[in-house]
């Protein structure tokens, strides 16, 4: 009789709503971002008070947000993709050449961008998922390949003059009520670029995909333990394949958004973007070991990272070397906070 106690009585812990690792990391990121931005407003003043400062961060990072989303997805599924930066450069260069030299239109450029991204996703995904080559190496090779191909397509940098594209590029979406007076006393409206809209749509869509679709959940399962996932009846290979395809596709989209922002092709575009994407994802609470992560977190990860850089450039440091050292110190601080909170949480759990 006494052995028939209900499950709930027997385990006092089970009613406690437990925050998953994914969520706690997201909260940390969000909290630190808000605190950081608030501190910047208080201590560094003027610039950070203007809404446009925030929108500029979005404008500058729209592409990175998209790339980071793709990165988060492969990381959640237990992989990594370090080719995204180089693919972005390749996309920019291909689109630029297509528009200016090959008589392309905006539509063909978009299709080309998607195609390039998709091809990288397909090939890399195939190698990773079906031939079981380590993702780091596959995508490292992918990065080399994209770098080389960019200069094979065109070795110099140039601004695109194509008219339709220029129109698209200079389209700005003004945000009502957020403008500010400039030096001459004229109101400058606050604005975001088209890329930001694309980025936000991407974030929302991917958030939903990861949260509610089977595919999205499969990414988590495969990243958490691919062997188990296989035995739970999930097609692990296909899931990994799709993760890379998605990441490739997002690199294509991100590449085009980058292109739209800078309006030029250059072999040095987006160099090092993969590291920023990885850092943003991780700051946003995605684990390189797979199975844990959140797109909203990634979004705030990107914002945090660039806010850090913005703060550093507003600090008025007098020697050049302080810039990078300060950025690094702030990333370090950020990661430490994350780590300490996480370990506290795990301790309480026990």
């Amino acid at each position, binding site marked *: *009789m*006494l*052995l*028939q106690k*209900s*499950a*709930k009585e*027997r*385990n006092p*812990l*089970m*009613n406690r*709503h*437990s925050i*998953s*690792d994914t969520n706690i990391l997201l909260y940390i990121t969000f909290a630190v971002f808000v605190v950081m931005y608030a501190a910047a407003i208080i201590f560094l003043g003027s610039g950070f008070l203007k809404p446009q400062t925030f929108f500029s961060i979005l404008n500058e990072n729209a592409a990175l947000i998209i790339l980071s989303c793709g990165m988060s997805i492969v990381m959640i599924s237990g992989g990594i993709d370090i080719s995204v930066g180089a693919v972005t450069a390749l996309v920019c260069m291909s689109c630029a050449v297509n528009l200016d030299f090959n008589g392309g239109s905006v539509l063909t450029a978009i299709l080309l961008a998607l195609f390039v991204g998709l091809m990288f996703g397909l090939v890399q995904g195939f190698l990773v998922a079906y031939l079981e080559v380590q993702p780091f190496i596959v995508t490292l090779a992918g990065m080399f390949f994209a770098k080389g191909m960019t200069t094979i397509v065109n070795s110099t940098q140039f601004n695109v003059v194509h008219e339709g594209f220029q129109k698209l590029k200079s389209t700005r979406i003004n945000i009502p009520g957020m403008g500010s007076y400039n030096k001459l006393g004229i109101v400058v409206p606050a604005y975001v670029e088209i890329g930001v809209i694309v980025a936000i749509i991407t974030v929302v869509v991917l958030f939903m995909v990861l*949260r*509610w*679709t*089977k*595919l*999205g*959940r*499969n990414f*988590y*399962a495969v*990243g*958490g*333990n691919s*062997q*188990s*996932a*296989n*035995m*739970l*009846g*999930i*097609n692990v290979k296909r899931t990994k394949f799709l993760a890379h395809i998605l990441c490739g596709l997002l690199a294509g989209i991100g590449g085009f958004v980058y292109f739209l922002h800078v309006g030029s092709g250059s072999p040095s575009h987006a160099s090092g973007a993969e590291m920023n994407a990885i850092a943003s994802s991780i700051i946003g609470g995605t684990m390189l070991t797979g*199975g*844990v992560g959140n797109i909203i977190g990634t979004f705030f990860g990107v914002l945090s990272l660039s806010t850090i850089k913005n703060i550093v450039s507003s600090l008025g440091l007098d020697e050049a070397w302080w810039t990078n050292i300060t950025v690094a110190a702030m990333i370090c601080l950020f990661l430490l906070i994350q780590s300490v909170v996480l370990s506290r949480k795990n*301790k309480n*759990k*026990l």
Partner: protein
Amino acid sequence: MQDGAILEMRGISKYFPGVRALHDVDFTLHEGEIHALMGENGAGKSTLIKVLTGVYSKDAGQICIKGSSGSVSIRSPEDAQKIGISTVYQEITLCPNLTVAENMYIGRTKGSLTHWKKINTEAGKLLDSLGIPASPTMQLSSCSIAVQQMVAIARAVDMECKVLILDEPTSSLDDQEVSKLFRLMLDLKAKGVGIIFVTHFLDQVYEVCDRITVLRDGKLVGEYVIGDLPKVQLVSKMLGKELDDLSGIQKNADEIYVGRTEVPVFEAIQLKSSANIKPFDFAIYRGEVNGFTGLLGSGRSECVRAIFGADKTTGGTIRIDGKKARISKPLDAMKHGISYLPEDRKRDGIVGDLSVRENIILALQVMKGFFRPFSRAQAEAFADEYIKLLDIKTASSDTPIKSLSGGNQQKVILARWLLSNPVYLILDEPTRGIDIGTKVEIQKLVLKLAAEGKSITFISSEIDEMYRTCSRLIVMRDRRVVGELRGEDLTQNKIMATIAGGD
């Protein structure tokens, strides 16, 4: 296909490098039967199941399923699920980063969306009906291994299936859970589901099964109707020889330990650990075998982990041979001659990619010191000795431990701790997943070690086993030590009563 057969496997062979895991095995499962698959550790039971469910590709043979003509090809667990085979694997195969509910439904729901509300409420219902102490929204990794096992079972039995496979599902369950599981199995059987049941508990086989297939060394020994095969014969079929007499196991006379005055080998006073157990007192004497018993999750493991320093101790004192000692990490305990065989073999025991040899010598090597590695020959000698002693089935001592069968992995870990020649040996579920023959061997070994003057703490979910080997039982409930039984109090009834908390 035979009449009434739901699944037929013919001439199945599977080879691993250096190992013939399955050789020309036939297996038939009928509608509405519970079919036991029996055999020693490493006989090939799990391999047969993995071949059937597409985890491994077979090297030869055919599989036929009722409802599809000709032989079917099952290339992945996904295919198997689609055909209507639902499986609980021996090693828990769930995703630790997902919630309990999600683990129960992922990979088997229709449609491409996840309805969180729906799966949470349904999982809640299912968990409640099976009495599983977990909430659907908990992250799986925060559940105990037993709960995980039950979640895996819940997932499998909830599936619409023709064939249900249970590979040692009961190894970490207590009697209550087991009987619940059996009720479930009988329900499903009534509905015409064919069930393959792998276990090392003979009683359980005779309780629920209709038919038995015995494997030995990867080969089919035969298929028997349960009534035709008495236990003794079954055992000899499995082992290929007669079983040593169980009654030969006789624990030391317990009276001598009652009220003894000598200094305990190990003594803990108000010991507390970060794992949230109530402070407890504990002592063990030279040559004694004692045990912790209690319900699932009552904190037995946590107690011994605290003793070994596996969890951080947060209070209390420890005396070893009467002298005060500090154990803050496992190495301290090891240096004091304490060894601990953890209950979760996959997570805490094996070092998967390392060879059997390296796994065996690991603990001794660590104690010997960083700068004094064993020579290859020496390590080889140790490994061979224990492979022989415990009859570990492995292609060679170079084989990575993860490719051994579950039971043999357990033996390797046991070998590791025996090799380190401890004064005080803690065994948390050492017989989990071990075949009947070896189980007896291990119990004997425990008593032999005790007779040699070693102290042993023995934890097992099988009261029987505890009863047979321990001279003193510490009973736990709700993470608290609630009693101690010894001498004539040590009866099945008394134990059950104390566990339940009745007076």
